[in-house]
């Protein structure tokens, strides 16, 4: 997956980026393309189910409407049992987007809560939460999802949403924790503390606003993960197959041999829809990355000054202040994580 850590963490750059978000013309091209494409699909998801020409589940008994190629009456043709593919697609985009956005919101809220709490409270809490996140990260998600949903999949869309959210937070939590650790020792946080602001106020009004871009990137990544995983799960049949999502359309198309029988209109549109939604999210994410970390921007333009190509030679942005003081128990727990590998290196520099 394309989980890319934005490395630059200085708040000045973040603040600058936030200003730019308001200026459409200054957005990276990739972000613009992503927003337009995603907006289109959100629009379809909202109004699509209201304008379906047919009931997506209605099986037209007329024999010559079985696997009928697209024509004026059925713009995207019909399935093997005479159902209208366009109607299924319009309903399916809604259901898939709905699932992905709910998972995105729930998992991102969890990530932020865990990541920020771990970093601000520090000590034992930090080590424990990191340990839990590491354990979740190392256990392969899809087999676990298949096992869980194998028991639960006949209960509609909610088990999938719950399980995807429950397994989708650790990566974001780790990224946000690292960022919070970098922020929390900065002067403006110290100033807020001196001014007598409560921990919760500092978290809500000082720390989190400085992480908007990271949280946004994390949300986009989670939505991407939810779409990919839910479609894959439905495709292999571990989902509520009586509802119409992009994944279940593909499942039925595949199980009825749509591709082998030449019914591309049944199989290609839902797959293309997933691919386009996915691309719009990837573009959006790369756009956010470039906004926050100018070094990743299109270098051909950025590095060419007066016709000469220059290499970026300014010092690397490093995650500063990443070595929190640890209690003995905390240090003991930390020593089991892979990131403890870097401790000695930093010290020996």
């Amino acid at each position, binding site marked *: 997956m394309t989980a890319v850590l934005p490395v630059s963490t200085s708040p000045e750059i973040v603040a600058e980026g936030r200003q730019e978000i308001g200026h459409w013309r200054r957005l990276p091209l990739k972000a613009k393309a992503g927003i337009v494409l995603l907006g289109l699909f959100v629009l379809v998801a909202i109004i699509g189910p209201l304008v379906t020409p047919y009931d997506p589940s209605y099986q037209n008994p007329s024999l010559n409407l079985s696997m009928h190629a697209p024509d004026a009456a059925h713009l995207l043709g019909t399935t093997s049992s005479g159902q209208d593919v366009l109607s299924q697609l319009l309903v399916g985009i809604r259901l898939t987007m709905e699932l992905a956005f709910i998972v995105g919101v729930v998992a991102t809220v969890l990530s932020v809560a865990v990541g920020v709490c771990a970093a601000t409270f520090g000590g034992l809490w930090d080590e424990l939460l990191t340990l839990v996140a590491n354990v979740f990260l190392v*256990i392969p998600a899809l087999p676990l999802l298949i096992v869980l949903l194998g028991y639960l999949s006949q209960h509609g869309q909610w088990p999938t949403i719950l399980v995807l959210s429950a397994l989708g937070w650790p990566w974001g939590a780790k990224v946000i924790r690292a960022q919070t650790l970098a922020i929390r020792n900065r002067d403006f946080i110290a100033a807020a503390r001196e001014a007598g602001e409560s921990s919760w106020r500092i978290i809500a009004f000082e720390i989190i606003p400085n992480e908007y871009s990271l949280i946004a990137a994390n949300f986009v990544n989670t939505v991407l993960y939810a779409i990919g995983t839910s479609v894959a799960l439905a495709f292999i049949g571990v989902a509520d197959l009586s509802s119409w999502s992009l994944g279940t359309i593909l499942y039925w198309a595949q199980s009825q041999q749509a591709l082998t029988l030449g019914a591309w209109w049944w199989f290609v549109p839902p797959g293309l829809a997933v691919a386009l939604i996915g691309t719009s999210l990837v573009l959006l994410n790369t756009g956010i990355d470039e906004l926050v970390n100018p070094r990743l921007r299109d270098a*051909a333009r950025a590095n060419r000054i007066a016709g000469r190509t220059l290499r970026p030679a300014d010092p690397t942005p490093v995650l500063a202040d990443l070595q929190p003081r640890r209690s003995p128990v905390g240090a003991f727990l930390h020593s089991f994580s892979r990131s403890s590998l870097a401790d000695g290196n930093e010290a020996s520099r």
Partner: protein
Amino acid sequence: MSYIARRLIFYVVAAWVALTANFFIPRLVPGNAVEAIMSKFPELSPATYKALEAMLGVGHPAGLWSQYVSYLDDVAHFNFGIDVSQYPAHVSTLLGETIPWTLTLVGTATVIAFFLGTGLGILAGWRHGGWADRALPGLMFIQAIPYFFLALILIEVLAVKLHVFPIGSGYAGGLVPGWNWAFIGSAIYHSLLPAFTIVITSVAGWMLQMRNVMITTIGEDYVLAGQAKGLTNRRVVFTYAARNALLPQLQGFGLALGFVVSGAIIMEIVFSYPGIGLLLVNAVTSNDYPLTEAIFLVITFAVLLANLIVDLVLVFIDPRVRTREATA
């Protein structure tokens, strides 16, 4: 205590979490799993009924704790019970038949994708804005396509229409698995297209990550120093920049293994490849709970083991860690 020993303990904890989840999931879900199995497979004997009840904890007189202990004991002895959908085959026999297929194909394809992606990432990062860099958006689009969709289109075009590759399954029908050239040749021929699809869908991820780390590493002073000394470009790129950029890439490799496994499961469904992923999905869709749980454990343990190997490699290739390990 050395770093590796501590990591080992971490993996033991992770394995215990997976084992415990595996134990509690069937006990927490609503409905009687054993009844569901028995109604689906009426040929099962009463003894199996008892065994299933014990395994899934349905209507069992013994306390939860003693069930848990005997469950751990069974797993420790690789005793995963008797399969219900292919009764009376033992679950461990079925696992033994399918694991080599998955391991060979997915292992090879992943290693190829990793090296190819890392190489392209080095190139894209060094020649920032060059051709490899400009190919990235295209590769990212390929990555956004659902894997199975791309694979099915490729099967349709390359196998069904053009007959370049076989349509699916692990080897040609009529051959008996064994160590002879006809079978091995057929198995390799059948694995080409699945391997190809895994490589092209996963290469962009490795490439993007390596490129981004390379770009930051190239900004480091020691790279500039290397160039100032007049070293050849190749030496600066590989020995100075890439070698250091490789560390985060390898750490990412450990974390990405979960995704690799996910991709492998879908691949096996699409190609009806006789591996463990296909077995898992068939087990789930036919309510074969004993098999499902055993496969989940095997996959999880394999990923944990692979992560441990990544840790060993990390210690091995990073001289700073190596010296620290030696003195500790």
